[in-house]
């Protein structure tokens, strides 16, 4: 038995009649910002159970986002033209320190894709030797480019820390990781005598 129709209630006949977005009743940003500011306190053991739960949810959201970014990078590297094939190369014999391609939380997320991790690790491991094979002016410019990429990654990650769900920043970060792989691949191939890039 169904209840009689409520003539006062407005019938929705099309999805277009629904509101485009539902805004929260008040500005949530100040509280979110305050919680972000409190993260060090929480890490120091002063987090309440409710706040710890919120932290967990936030980190889960960040982890999910990282997985999406990693998948995007893997797809880009696997299917875009110029993806490197076998990247196994000799380990630098001179044991020099490679440029500071630091491992970040985002890098750690990529480890979930072993192929991406293997490719990147192999390229980074041989980077110093490959750079040494370049003409000195080119080497200096490439090192400057790698530094630029590192700074871009750091800036994007910092911005994502403030706005983790920002699709624009996520896309630009994926682009930057693809740039890094492109540079590493180009350096690898450019220093291979007789092969060119």
């Amino acid at each position, binding site marked *: 038995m169904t209840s009689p129709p409520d003539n006062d209630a407005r019938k929705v006949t099309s999805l277009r009649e629904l509101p485009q977005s539902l805004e929260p009743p008040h500005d949530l940003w100040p509280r979110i910002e305050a919680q972000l500011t409190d993260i060090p306190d929480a890490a120091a053991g002063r987090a309440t159970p409710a706040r710890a739960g919120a932290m967990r949810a936030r980190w889960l959201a960040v982890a999910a986002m990282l997985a999406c970014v990693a998948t995007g990078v893997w797809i880009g590297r696997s299917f875009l033209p110029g993806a490197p094939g076998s990247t196994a190369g000799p380990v630098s014999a001179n044991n020099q320190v490679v440029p500071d391609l630091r491992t970040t939380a985002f890098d750690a997320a990529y480890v979930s894709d072993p192929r991406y991790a293997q490719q990147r690790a192999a390229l980074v491991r041989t980077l110093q030797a490959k750079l040494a094979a370049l003409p000195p002016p*080119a080497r200096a410019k490439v090192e400057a480019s790698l530094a630029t990429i590192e700074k871009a990654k750091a800036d994007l990650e910092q911005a994502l820390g403030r706005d983790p769900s920002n699709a624009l920043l996520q896309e630009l970060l994926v682009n930057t990781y693809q740039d890094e792989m492109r540079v590493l691949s180009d*350096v690898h191939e450019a220093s291979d005598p007789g092969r060119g890039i």
Partner: protein
Amino acid sequence: MRIAMRLSGALLLLLAGAAASASAEQTFDREVAVQPRGAVDISNVSGRIEVSGWERAEVSVHAELEAGVERVDVSSEGGHTSIKVLVPHAPGHGGEVRLQVKIPQESELNVSGVSADITTTGVLGVQRLNAVSGNVTAELAGADVELKTVSGNLHLKGRGQAARLRLSTVSGDVRVEHGAGDFEASTVNGTLIVSLDSARSVRVHTTSGDVRFEGRLTHGATVEASTVSGELNVHASADGGYAYEVSSFSGAISDCFNASPERASQYGPGSRLEGTRGQGAGHVRLKTMSGAVQLCDRL
């Protein structure tokens, strides 16, 4: 004392002779009959590579070799011609070679250099030009062109003939004049200055390099440009107009048609400019994190 001075003089003459001998240039000339639409591969480590197209079914090679270069190999078989400058394997050895090559104008051309500058003129076939630190300058003639360097600059000059153009460099600058067709370019921190007479699709990306694009779009064309911290300056006109979408996290957005950017989110950072010019047949999407963006529908 006089004997010592004479000995010193003789020694100096000997050293000068040896130095002159070491820097002496040799020349190499060779012509081979080839297929008019074959492929020509050229490689040279250091110096210059100048390629021009001509109407004869022959490849002509003129090389000026500095000391330390082993030889120039030229071979042709089954529509494939190869020109290689061979240098000793030890790093730091081998002088420069200036290669001047004439090829049938409809040949497919593949050039690879390390620190050699590459220049092409009058080649109507597909061109793939790669260098590490050398600069690449190519003349566009309607066939697809792919230019790639690590630190060298890229310069492409066309006459409005449509083609697929792909340019990529790590730290070099990119400059394109009178290109047309499908265009794709990327650089990390170089500057991108692109002028297209007629563009079907445009995709450009930099990390920190500035982009200045100026071009006329065909009906329904797409333009996508993104950068992390560089500036995007896009002047694109189209007969059918275009829908535009400009997104920025912290960079300023401006335009020449008095539209105002809005906040991307009511409570979060970021701004967005969206709208339509003309009939909205094409699409223009510009994205940046912190660089300034300027969009204009007039050239």
